């Protein structure tokens, strides 16, 4: 009986496992193999062992791109979720405008990232909309070459990412807010918990699952960010916004170093898996403690 149940389960799982194996595991294994060759992207490839990985260790571009990627992810995760939480908290307290504003906040996520980046490349240009607006409101001192300055370019790119996905984070936090037991919030109000006190003691612990989802999703998304730096800065100025994905892309399609690019993507894979699973595990541990 037990064996038949397991056989039935296996039979049901088989199609999904087959699809996953063919379209995920095989390309992954093949990619790892390719990263150990000298392939230029064609049928000719010789096994070179860990040469590409050793070359990577001596490549300052990789170290810089890894740092930019991690910094970018940190900025996006903190600011995007901070703003998302702030907006969700405000909308929760204003039921009349909640639906309308939630739709407004979600609108940027409906635009293609490439199109959004292209529009923002004009807005962030030296004579673009942002600087014109700052001039108009008398803040000329704040005008800046956002994408042309190595000290602001990465943050400008991150800002576009944050603009695009804050509404998404907000929607998840708001859903979590909406599922909070009304009696619990009423009891807290009766006990005199209001404002910041209520947020810290009641809302924040109850938002833990939403925080886990938001942080994990935004971390994965920002670690593998590609379209924004590609369109907005193409990794510049002076490599200040070079990310791992851009390096992969440039080596595979531009530099003709196909195998090296694949080796970089293996490093990206490991980085994404390690950081996202570690973060996710820590946040779940926190959930259980609350």
């Amino acid at each position, binding site marked *: 009986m037990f064996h038949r149940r397991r056989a039935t389960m296996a039979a049901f799982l088989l199609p999904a496992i087959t699809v996953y194996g063919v379209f995920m595991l095989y390309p992954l294994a093949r990619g790892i193999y390719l990263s150990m060759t000298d392939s230029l992207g064609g049928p000719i490839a010789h096994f070179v062992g860990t040469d590409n990985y050793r070359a990577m260790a001596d490549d300052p571009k990789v170290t810089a791109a890894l740092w930019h990627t991690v910094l970018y992810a940190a900025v996006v995760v903190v600011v995007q979720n901070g703003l998302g939480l702030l907006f969700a908290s405000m909308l929760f307290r204003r039921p009349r405008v909640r639906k309308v504003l939630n739709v407004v906040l979600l609108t940027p996520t409906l635009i293609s990232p490439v199109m959004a980046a292209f529009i923002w490349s004009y807005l962030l240009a*030296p004579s673009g909309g942002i600087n014109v607006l700052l001039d108009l409101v008398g803040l000329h001192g704040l005008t800046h070459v956002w994408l042309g300055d190595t000290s602001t370019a990465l943050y400008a790119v991150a800002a576009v990412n944050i603009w695009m996905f804050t509404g998404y984070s907000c929607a998840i936090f708001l859903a979590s807010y909406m599922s909070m037991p009304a009696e619990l919030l009423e009891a807290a109000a009766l006990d005199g918990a209001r404002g910041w006190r209520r947020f810290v003691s009641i809302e924040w612990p109850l938002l833990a699952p939403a925080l886990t989802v938001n942080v994990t999703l935004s971390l994965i998304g920002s670690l593998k960010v590609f379209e924004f730096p590609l369109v907005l800065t193409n990794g510049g100025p002076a490599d200040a916004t070079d990310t791992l994905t851009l390096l992969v892309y440039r080596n595979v399609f531009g530099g003709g170093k196909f195998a090296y690019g694949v080796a970089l993507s293996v490093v990206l*894979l490991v980085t994404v898996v390690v950081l996202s699973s570690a973060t996710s595990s820590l946040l779940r541990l926190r959930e259980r403690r609350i």
Partner: protein
Amino acid sequence: MKRSGRSLAVATTVAALAMSLAACGGGSSGASGDGTVTLHVEAWKGGGAEPANVAEINKAFEKTHPKIKVDFEYITAGDTYTQKLQTELLGGKAGDVIMADTDKMGKWGASGYLADLSKEAWASRIAPDAKQFTQADGKTLAMPMELIGIGMYANMDLLKKAGITEVPADWPTFLKDLAKVKKAGINPIALPDKSGWTGESVFQASGSTLVYQKNKQWDADFLGGKTGFDPDWKAPLQQLKTLEDKGYVNWKNELGVDDWSQGPQDFSAGKSAFWYQGAWQVSNVKKAGFPVSFAPWPGGAAGTKPNGMVFSGTMWAVNSQSQQADAAREYVKFWSQSENLAKYLEAEHAESPFTGGTTPESPETTAFTTAFKEGRYRIMPSNTWYGSAAETATGSKIQAYLLGKASAAQTLKDIQAGASAK
């Protein structure tokens, strides 16, 4: 499955997806029952903002070859084209005839994707200067379509307002003209450099005069380890800085403007007196309605004539996996004939890469064409030390220099390292 496990699976899946390259075919080629052959041609010219008379030439080809139908596919230039063709070639789905440049030809040739065209009749007519850019391992793998200039554009209306009647030919005159233009309240020069292309290209164009007029064999000497970038290329690098020191350009601003989209739009809108780009933009700029002149970068000493910088541009290659090899070779042969290629060269404002080939004249490019005819030009060594990887690296190193993040000596050292990388 636990949620932590699910996150791990999602992370793994997402990253694995980034590693898998999907080949996607486009167009069609084959033979029909009545013996008509359909030839699939892929190119980054012939559509969008650069029609380049490709449609007219294809029509003429079909007229003279009624049994061959051309299925032409235009693909956006740059990364988009490379990405699409790379995966199609890998999947055996690429066109019968594909556009290439020297860099792509070298890479695709090394992977065995390109047919050997050495025995084609036109191969013996390639100009000696251009031949090296069409070959790999002694085999001719592509038919050159053009030698195209990259240089300085001048808005003659704006120059006239500043009292200037002709495009400057040397560095001191150029600086004087920039001062006059600035005094007239006009933005002197636009060098949009967000992608890093303009900076490295001006550096190369300036070197075309300052380095190669002193030593025509500089490339060979460099490759032979007899010379280096420091001090040979110090002056071209300094020229970039001088433009800012004198207040004619703000590099931080320029690094915020896109070379390929905003740059051409701004110049066509009459926002600056001078600009730097390839001759392929002449046709588009002409539409703006003001008189324009395209000339070599005026980098030389007072009273000298500048060298033009020429780039071995587009080429036709035949896919070695093509089922229509004969038709593909016939198509390439048709393009190699002067009367057909001239239509393309006319649209591109480029020079013929063939000995005795026809180079169309145009008033906008007289200054550049004159330099070419007089032998005052240097071809960018995209087949040796200045392939796409070195070009990209040079662009970002020059950006760092222009932002004051690296010294001239360090920049030249970095450029040399990039140019020496295998």
